[in-house]
């Protein structure tokens, strides 16, 4: 199976409360770039689908990672190559010249060239929180989709049984490849991904894998290709434009109560919610 994984770098989500907003603009100076967590989960999922987990060094498929951004975003791609991805593509673009729809249209053209069996994406990037590229891409390609996947079982690499995490529980879908799947948090649990190559008894470590030093060195020799955005789409118009940003309204300072009795009394007489 060949899997294509779109990958975005975001400013450190664990410190998102430190972003500054001045003059209606967001300033992330001082925050480290990190891979979008959901995209890292998608890379991990792609690797699990294209290997025998019990002897992962021999590849049983191909994983292509792709990002949109300036030259320095190649660091994000190299990190994915070091964990096991086979090939990387950087589509040269500036963040401010992109929106979800343009990315989906460019990815469509890339998918038509690369011909993957599966596009695995994070369900959302945790900077824009837009949650749309996977679904848009599926529609532009005319492919089926399974969003918010918590589990994936590959059925002979012809179809996938996907457990989608929905508001009321789990919705199980079967998609025939090629398809687009977007992944949720629990896809990286030890038993969440079942591939045809891995013995069913195999337990993965919880979370995403780390790159060994040797693999980091070896990743420098893996192919990393640059593609111009204009070679994928001639229509670079944005469908969404932001005019300004503002910080969230501050909550009024709360109080500490000393006892449960005081808490209940305040909830009754002050907040009047009991």
């Amino acid at each position, binding site marked *: 199976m060949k899997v294509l994984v779109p990958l975005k770098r975001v400013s450190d989500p664990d410190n998102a409360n430190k972003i500054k907003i001045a003059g209606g603009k967001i300033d992330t100076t001082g925050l480290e770039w990190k891979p979008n967590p959901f995209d890292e989960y998608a890379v991990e999922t792609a690797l699990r689908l294209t290997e025998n987990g019990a002897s992962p060094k021999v590849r049983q498929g191909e994983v292509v990672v792709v990002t949109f951004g300036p030259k320095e975003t190649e660091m994000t791609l190299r990190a994915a190559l070091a964990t096991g991805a086979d090939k990387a593509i950087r589509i040269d673009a500036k963040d401010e010249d992109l929106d979800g729809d343009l990315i989906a249209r460019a990815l469509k053209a890339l998918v038509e060239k690369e011909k993957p069996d599966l596009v695995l994406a994070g369900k959302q990037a*945790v900077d824009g*929180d837009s949650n749309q590229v996977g679904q848009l891409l599926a529609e532009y390609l005319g492919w089926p*989709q399974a969003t*918010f996947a918590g589990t994936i079982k590959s059925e002979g690499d012809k179809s996938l049984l996907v457990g989608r995490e929905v508001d009321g529980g789990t919705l199980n879908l079967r998609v025939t490849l090629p398809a687009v799947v977007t992944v949720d948090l629990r896809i990286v649990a030890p038993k969440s991904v079942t591939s045809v190559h891995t013995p069913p008894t195999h337990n993965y470590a919880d979370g995403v894998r780390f790159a060994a030093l040797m693999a980091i060195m070896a990743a420098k020799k893996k192919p990393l290709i640059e593609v111009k955005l204009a070679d994928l789409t001639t229509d670079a118009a944005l469908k969404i434009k932001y005019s300004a940003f503002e910080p969230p309204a501050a909550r009024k300072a709360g109080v500490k109560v000393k006892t449960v009795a005081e808490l209940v009394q305040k909830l009754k007489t002050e907040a009047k919610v009991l």
Partner: protein
Amino acid sequence: MNILVIAELHEDSLRKSTHSAITFAKNVGAPFSVLVIGSGADKAVQEAATFGAQKVLVADDASLKDPLAERYAPVVAQVAKGGNFDVVVVTASSYGKDIAPRVAAKLGAGYATDISGVKNDGGKLTFKRPVYAGNAFGYCEIQTPVKVVSVRQSEFAAAESSGGASPVEKVAVPAADPAAARVEFVSLEAAKSERPDLGEAKVIVSGGRALKERFAEVLDPLANLLGAAVGASRAACDAGYAPPELQVGQTGRVVAPQLYFAIGISGAIQHLAGMKGSKNIVAVNKDPEAPIFQVADYGLVQDLFTAVPELITELKK
């Protein structure tokens, strides 16, 4: 301007999330119609007709029994085009977020996700939406003639039924997309619960990893007493102490009840993003430095295993 509200169904009834999408239409102040998609959806249709919509449009067909984006999006797109709708709105539930982008792509429309506000300035719509886990809000405009938006349920109070009966009109079901032949609904494992849905509850009792295996044992009696929904932090869900559908946060459910109890929750950024909008927040944590206290209206520094039983006793007095 003409707005199309996509209803969300649960079994044969209207899900309450739909009421928030109707509120969006009322806030914009333009005429709206409601589109009900399903199979045997008479009950939902009758309910949808009581909100003052111009029309309730119904696509009722056996092929639409299960909510598959590949089957629903062509219906929405055809209705939006045929009725000359300018804005298509759905609530940003897992259902809405699944189908709305496919609708936008079919209509060549821009799509703004999970909006928390809208301003109508003489027909020019500006949308407000949270970014960076709610650590900033952006004001955006959709550049295309047709606009698709999903609305955050906790920010658009549920519309009240105004009585009356909007005219009901059946719409033709378009031919299925080729993609529909390659997706099969297998099953829905719905969590059985007598408690209110997280998105609709007035009181939520949420727990963190500190509860360990005693998550349900400790929190259920409190939730039952208050008629509350139960929520959980990501850490508690990841550790398997609570099922994933209880997760409150940036990437789980976003809630804004009258009263939110954070029990043994430290207050990670991604959790705060899902509950900061609550009207009253109570935090119980034995760590006085826990970040949750920065957003709590009432903080109690105490071990939750003694505090929760005391709380139950005190509430019963």
